[in-house]
């Protein structure tokens, strides 16, 4: 049995009289690519913020990389990576400066940072633009750099919030090659996306509706269960059950 790196039980978040996340219970294994799907407003972002130790749950239990979500949020933050479409890199720093900056934030030593910077820049083919401001990079490059920085401290889990929004189809795939590679190295990938073809790349998927996890299975079994030809169809069938607006 593989190690469990995310475990939640009845995890709930209530804002006033609105239950954003309603008693979700699930487990994610080491090295798994776990897709976290749901319509806008289903509660994905709130759930993800709790899992990252950024928001204290109203009730329920969870451990992330073995740490308690109430008491050990600082340890959680050291053991995870995070990347979203909205926040990723500092645009007015260069590629190299960004790497060094985040290396420092993640607590790497100077020697480690120097080694990692070189390796990263080579691996991503960014040698010619190492001293270019990030604002001048094409979006696809930014996304790849941002992902590599999110995992440079070898976290147990990396959280990706719609990482490929607006990126061209070729770059989107190159980005997923990086995800596959990271998972292969044992990093657990927790990812949200609105692209249903990307949902197919995940080992398992959960689909949230109105704050609850409505379905959780492999893409293959979800399609079987909902008698659908594609994940698009599965999503449509499930998300349509939503009551709240």
């Amino acid at each position, binding site marked *: 049995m593989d190690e469990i790196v995310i475990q939640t039980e009845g995890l709930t978040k209530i804002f006033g009289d609105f239950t954003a996340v309603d008693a979700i219970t699930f487990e994610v294994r080491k090295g798994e690519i776990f897709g976290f799907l*749901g319509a806008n*407003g289903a509660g994905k972002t709130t759930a993800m913020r709790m899992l990252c130790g950024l928001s204290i749950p109203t009730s329920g239990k969870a451990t992330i990389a073995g740490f308690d979500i109430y008491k050990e949020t600082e340890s959680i933050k050291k053991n995870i990576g995070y990347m979203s479409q909205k926040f990723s890199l500092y645009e007015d720093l260069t590629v190299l400066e960004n790497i060094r900056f985040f290396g420092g934030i993640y607590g790497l030593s100077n020697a480690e940072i120097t080694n990692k910077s070189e390796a990263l820049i080579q691996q991503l083919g960014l040698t010619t633009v190492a001293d270019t401001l990030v604002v001048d990079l094409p*979006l696809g490059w930014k996304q790849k750099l941002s992902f590599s920085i999110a995992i440079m401290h070898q976290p147990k889990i990396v959280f990706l919030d719609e990482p490929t929004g607006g990126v*061209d189809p070729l770059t989107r795939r190159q980005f997923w*090659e990086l995800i596959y590679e990271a998972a292969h190295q044992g990093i657990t990938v927790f990812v949200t996306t609105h692209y249903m073809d990307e949902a197919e790349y995940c080992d398992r998927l959960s689909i949230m509706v109105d704050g609850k996890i409505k379905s959780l299975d492999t893409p293959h079994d979800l399609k079987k269960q909902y008698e659908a030809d594609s994940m698009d169809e599965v999503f*449509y069938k499930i998300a349509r059950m939503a009551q709240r607006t």
Partner: protein
Amino acid sequence: MEAVVAENIIKTYQGKTAVNEVSFQVKEGEIFGLIGPDGAGKTSIFRILTTLLLPDGGKAQVCGWDVVEDYEPIRNSVGYMPGKFSLYQDLTVEENLHFFATVFKTTIQENYHLVRDIYVQLEPFKNRRAGKLSGGMKQKLALCCALIHKPKVLFLDEPTTGVDPVSRKEFWEMLKKLKEQGITIVVSTPYMDEAALCDRIALIHSGSILSIDTPERLVDTYGNALYQAKSSNMYLLLKSLKEMENINSYAFGEYAHISVHNENGIGVDEVTKRLREKGLDDIRIEKAEVTIEDCFIKMLGE
């Protein structure tokens, strides 16, 4: 008559070319899609056509008027929904709609038939401030506000970015109905599956148009032979395919797509044989249906 004509339009920002001699025509009553990723130049094109930005070169007409000389009549004849939510956040739903109707010297009543189908979904929240609406609701309100002066041409800049698949489908149903009312629609999107819903599309990348055609014809002229492969070990399958020369391969949903050049490419039997040698015993390869996304990927590679 053509609703929109763009002839070699150019836009540069601080020496960088954002729009590079882009030309296209949109017929009256058509849904025309500008399909491409962020940074392709879509927004600059929209802003030039809606007279909000001056081109550095080239010419464009909307409803027969020149975008530089005749900006006033154009502004009265087009509706524009920018990619970024641009309504007044601290006005209510109803106040926003009323405001935009007044600016264009009309009333909600006069053109209510155009927005009715969409506005009924917003009606329960008509006293809510726009800033407090959910993403899907904001988008519907923005569409209503862009329609309330009965525009001839509607410009929608990435109306569905970041929107979930269910709301995206609903949005495109609305566009179809607007088209039936005779409104010309120019819409941009990074989602390739939405391209198939347009009458004609322009694929755009790095400021240049790669191709303009109907979705059907674009797919028909793909050129290469396309296969889909599947195995229980997709990671190894994709990795092994990448190592092979003379074919192009990439993940495509639950399959790997393999694009083989009709003359120079190696045969599919050879591909299968080589994959078996890698230990992929359960591999299944069959002919695949070409999609717009396959076309775009092929063009990006060329």
